C-alpha cells in the first residue's frame, strides 16, 4: 500500500498519472476517502501554495498540480458524497460584472478546493444579485470577488455593498491585479490576498473567525 506522503509528493509535483494511480491504490487498500483528501491531497496543494508564494513555481506549474488534484477528486468526490461527507466550509467565487478575466479567479478556486473548501464557481461577469443568491443558497462561509480591470473595480465595490446590506454572516474576500489592501478596506471587504497562495491563508483565517 502506498503512503499518503507519496500522494502528497505526486500532487505537489503535478504528476497527474501518478496522483490518480496512487489514489486508486490507496482506495483499493482500504484508505478512507476523507483521509486521502485531508492527509494526501490537501498537504500537496499546501506545498504548491507555499512554493508559489516564494516564486519557486509559477502559474503553469500551479495549473498542472491543480489538474492532478482535480483528477484525483473525480475519483473521491462520489465516494465522499455517498458517505455524506462534505467539506467543512463552502466558498462562492466569481469575477465581477463587466469583467471576463478568469486566470486568477481559477487559480484561487483550485487552491481553495485544494484546501478542502467546497467551491461554487460562478464564472465571469457575475452580477451582485447572482453572488447574493448563491451565498444564500449554499449558506456560504466565504465569497470571493475577482477583478482585473480598473473599469470593473466599481462593480466590486457595489457587490460588496449589496452583500453586506443583505446582513449575511458570509465573509467577503477580494483580489485581482489592480486591487490593493487599501481598496479592500475602503470598500468594506473582510479580506484581500495578493496571490493564490496567500488566498488560502486569508480564507482559512476568515472562516475561522466566522465559525
Amino acid at each position: 500500500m502506498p503512503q499518503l506522503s507519496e500522494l502528497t509528493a505526486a500532487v505537489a509535483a503535478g504528476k497527474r498519472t501518478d496522483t490518480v494511480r496512487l489514489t486508486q491504490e490507496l482506495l483499493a487498500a482500504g484508505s478512507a476517502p476523507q483521509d486521502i483528501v485531508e492527509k494526501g491531497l490537501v498537504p500537496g496543494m499546501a506545498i504548491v501554495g507555499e512554493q508559489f508564494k516564494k516564486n519557486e513555481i509559477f502559474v503553469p506549474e500551479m495549473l498542472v498540480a491543480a489538474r492532478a488534484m482535480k483528477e484525483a477528486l473525480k475519483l473521491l468526490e462520489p465516494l465522499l458524497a455517498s458517505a455524506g461527507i462534505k467539506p467543512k466550509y463552502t466558498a462562492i467565487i466569481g469575477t465581477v460584472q463587466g469583467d471576463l478575466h478568469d486566470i486568477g479567479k481559477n487559480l484561487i478556486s483550485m487552491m481553495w478546493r485544494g484546501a478542502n473548501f467546497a467551491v461554487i464557481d460562478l464564472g465571469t461577469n457575475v452580477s451582485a444579485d447572482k453572488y447574493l443568491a448563491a451565498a444564500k443558497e449554499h449558506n456560504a462561509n466565504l465569497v470571493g470577488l475577482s477583478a482585473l480591470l480598473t473599469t470593473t473595480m466599481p462593480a466590486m465595490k457595489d457587490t460588496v455593498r449589496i452583500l453586506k446590506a443583505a446582513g449575511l454572516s458570509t465573509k467577503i474576500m477580494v483580489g485581482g491585479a489592480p486591487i490593493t489592501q487599501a481598496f479592500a478596506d475602503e470598500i468594506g471587504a473582510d479580506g484581500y490576498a495578493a496571490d493564490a497562495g496567500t488566498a488560502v491563508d486569508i480564507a482559512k483565517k476568515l472562516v475561522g473567525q466566522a465559525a
Partner: protein
Amino acid sequence: MTSREKVRRALRHEAGPVPVDFGSTGLTSFHVSCVAALREHYGLPRHPVKVCEPFQMLGEVEDDLANALGSDCIAANGRSTMFGFPNEGWHEWRTPWNQLVLVPAGFRTRQSAAGDVYLFPEGDTSVPASGHMPAGGYFFDAIVRQPPFTEEQLDPADNCEEFKLLSAADVEHWEREFARVRGDKRAIVSGVGGMGFGDIALVPAAFLKHPKGIRDVGEWYISLVERRDYIHHIFDYQCEIALRNLATYAALAGDTIDVLVVCGTDFGTQNSQFCSPATFDELFAPYYRRVNDWVHKHTAWKTFKHSCGAVRPLIDRFIDVGFDILNPVQCSAKDMDPVRLKADFGRRIVFWGGGVDTQQTLPFGTPEQVRAQVTERLKAFSPGGGFVFNTIHNVQARTPVANIVAMVDAVRDFNGAAV
C-alpha cells in the same frame, strides 16, 4: 531638435529633453472614449473617432491631437486587426456607452438582450463569435474556442495556421504606409506582426474562423510545462516565417522606421512571473535572439519588447537576447521601483513607459497626484536618456480627462524647466 532626433537621442542613451509617445502602438495609446474627451478638451474639430484597434477599442490619435499632446512618435500601422479584418471601409457605430465612433467594414456585431456585444473573425457572422464585450464593458475579450483534443491527436501545425508569409495585399499596404510616414519629423514606430511568441492574447486566435490546436489559456500555460516539444515546434515554425517576413518588410521600410515592436508576450503578473527564468531560457530566448540578431544585423532599428507585470527577474534576460526597449515598465508591480530599475538596467535598456500608473493614480487619483507622480517618474527615469515617456499601458476608459491633461502638462513643464 526634431521629435525624431529627440527620440533617437534617448534611444542612444544620451541626455536631452524627454521624448513622448502617445498613440504610436496598440500598447501606448488611449481608449476611444478618452481620445474623444481629449479632442473636446483641446478644442479640436468634433467628429467620430476611428477605432484603430477594435480589441482594446483604442482610438486613433490624429496629428492635431498628437501635436496638442506633444507626442514625438507616429505609427506605421499594419493592415489587419486582431479580428482578422482589415482596418478599412469605415462606417459609424454607436458604442454601448453611447459614443458615435468609426469602425472598419469587417466590424460586424451582434448584441444580446442583456447588452453584451459580440464580434466575429474576419467579420463573418456565419461562424461563432470570437470577441465578447460584456454589458457595461469597454472593450472586447477573446472567446476561447477550444476544440476537444487528446494528447495523441495534438499536431503543432494546428497552432501554426496564423503564421503566413506576407501577401501581395500586405506588401502593397506597407508600400503605401511607408510612403505616408516617410520624411515625418517624428520617430516612426512599426511592427510586422507574427513575432508574439506565446502571446496569451493571441493564443485564442480571435482572427481565425475555426482555430485548432491548443487555444485555451490555461491549457496553453500547462503546455509550457508538459508539452515543450510541441511549443518548440510552433515557435520554430513561427520564427522561420517571421524572419522571412522581416526580410520582405525591411526591404520596403529601409531606414524609414526607428523602432520595431517585436512582441507583446506578458511574462509578469502583478506580483510574480508567468514562468521561471529557466523556462524563459529554454522556450523563449532562442527565438527572441534569432529575431533581434536579424534586425540588428540588417537594420538600424531598435527592438521593442512589451511585457506587463513584475518582470525584474527577467530584464537581464531581455537585454541578453537583444531587446533594446522595454515597455510598459509596470512600476506598480512587485520589485519594479523606478529608481532601482534605472540604477540597475538604465544604461542597457530603454524604458518606454513607466510614466504614470494606469491602475490607480491616473484613473482614480487627483490631477495633483498625477502631476506629482509624473514628475517623480521623469526625475527617476530621464537622467542620461534611455527613456521615452508613456503611461503604463493604454489609458483605460473612464479615466478623467483632467488627469490625462495634468500628465501632459507635467511632462511639458518638466521638459520646459530642463531646457
